[in-house]
């Protein structure tokens, strides 16, 4: 272990202990680590933005010998300057054009992606749930394949029913859904509850893995420290 690694390990050890001090309640040492983390993260993100985005892609092309490259840099630079006008209430309207551009392009990319990357392929896949030829091709048990497809189909349809809020308006009475939709939505609620359970287990599992890694780091560091003292 070189000096930089050693100093890094000591810092990691101390900061981990300070974060764990939150178990005893909120305290200044814990808050110090959190402020430090936020500061380092913000500073690092700023450096990456300057070093990896602004300097090579916005500033450097301005001094290029290629005219198209200069133009390609001037347009985003102009839009970025207009966007900075949003910081001042007096001239904030100047930032409307780049803002509209950002929202428009962002929304178009996101919606296009959802439609072609999730909606169509997933609907197509759901329609293939009962393709028995597929089960045979994949060497799966046909009965199991059908049961699996049936569960997914029932879960999808009843979950859709749960989110169906169409109800006939009746004067002076609460809105009530059609009885058959209500029945389906109760089944859908069960599937949604199971989904929440799976999501919770996943989140817990991820958090537990992080905890195990940190505890393992503490133990390993102490072991290393002790062994180096003993050998010295």
């Amino acid at each position, binding site marked *: 272990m070189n000096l930089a690694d050693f100093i890094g390990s000591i810092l990691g050890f101390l900061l981990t202990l300070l974060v764990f001090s939150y178990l005893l309640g909120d305290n200044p040492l814990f808050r110090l680590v959190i402020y430090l983390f936020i500061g380092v*993260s913000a500073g*690092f*993100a700023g450096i*990456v*933005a300057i*070093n*990896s*985005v602004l300097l*090579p*892609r916005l500033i450097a092309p301005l001094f290029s010998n290629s005219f198209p490259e200069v133009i390609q840099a001037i347009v985003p630079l102009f839009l970025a300057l207009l966007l900075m006008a949003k910081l001042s209430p007096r001239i904030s309207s100047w930032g409307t054009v780049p803002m509209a551009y950002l929202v428009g*392009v*962002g929304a178009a*990319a*996101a919606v296009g*992606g*959802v439609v*072609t*990357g*999730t909606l169509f*392929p*997933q609907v197509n*896949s759901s329609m*293939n749930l009962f*393709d028995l030829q*597929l089960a045979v091709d994949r060497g799966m048990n046909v009965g199991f394949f059908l049961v699996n497809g049936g569960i997914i189909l029932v879960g999808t349809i009843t979950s859709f029913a749960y989110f169906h809020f169409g109800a006939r308006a009746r004067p002076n009475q609460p809105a009530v859904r059609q009885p058959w939709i209500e029945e389906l939505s109760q089944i859908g609620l069960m599937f949604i509850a199971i*989904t929440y359970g*799976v*999501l919770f*287990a*996943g*989140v*817990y*599992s*991820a958090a*537990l*893995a*992080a*905890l*195990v*890694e*940190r*505890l*393992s780091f503490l133990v390993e560091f102490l072991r290393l420290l002790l062994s180096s003292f003993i050998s010295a």
Partner: protein
Amino acid sequence: MNNLIEQLPEEASVLLVFDYDPGFSGELDAAATSVVDHLISRGAYLTLVSTIPVGPVLAERFLSSTVRNNNYVRNIHYVNLGFIPGGPTGLLSFAEDLHHTLPYTLDGEAAWSGDGGPVGRSVFPPLEGIEELSDFNLVVILVDDSFTARSWIEQVQPSLIGEGFHTPMAMVVSAQVEPLVRPYYDADPRQIQGLVTGLRGGAAYEQMTGRETMPGYYWDAFIYGMNAAGLLIIIGALVGIAYTLFGQREKEQSGGGV
């Protein structure tokens, strides 16, 4: 995942995406170590990218310390193209025009047109012959949140499939992301061709490929933690039921209700 890596040709080009925060590195490093170790043992050239600012540094840390005993040299066996700005829009741009979206390496060197050569040539062996994203032999994404995972599938995966070519996309994900990513893996046709999930997936991959990258006590502590949580939930539920039943009986004995 194992089959995907086993089927890679010699000196394959693999795009490796590091899209996780440092807070999840404990889980994802453990899950991904055996996968990346497998890639390295197959002699794959690695190209690293990330859509989060801290990702490129995590990638360097991962390759230099987490994957033990690797003799991979930066800019020879692997190249770090750094940060892709712009979220989903940036990813779309990356899929459409790789060279203009990431023109430089993390060191600030021109990635693609070394020695003033034509576009598509590179002085870096991992980028040699890479004109488009589909020229990679495999795309592996290490990701800790479902939005980013979906963005890669929605914006990038369609550009990996076309007439006469199909570059597989695989993911190593945090356990909290699995329920939202699995439908893409279970879909027919599959939208992602490989999936390794959290510590459990990492351990399973290790076992399958005969590797020992994860310390044994790591897995034991995880199992005990999971069992403890399950036990606590069951005890809590039983106490809750008992409290409700006895509370109701007491209420009935004392005359009941309001």
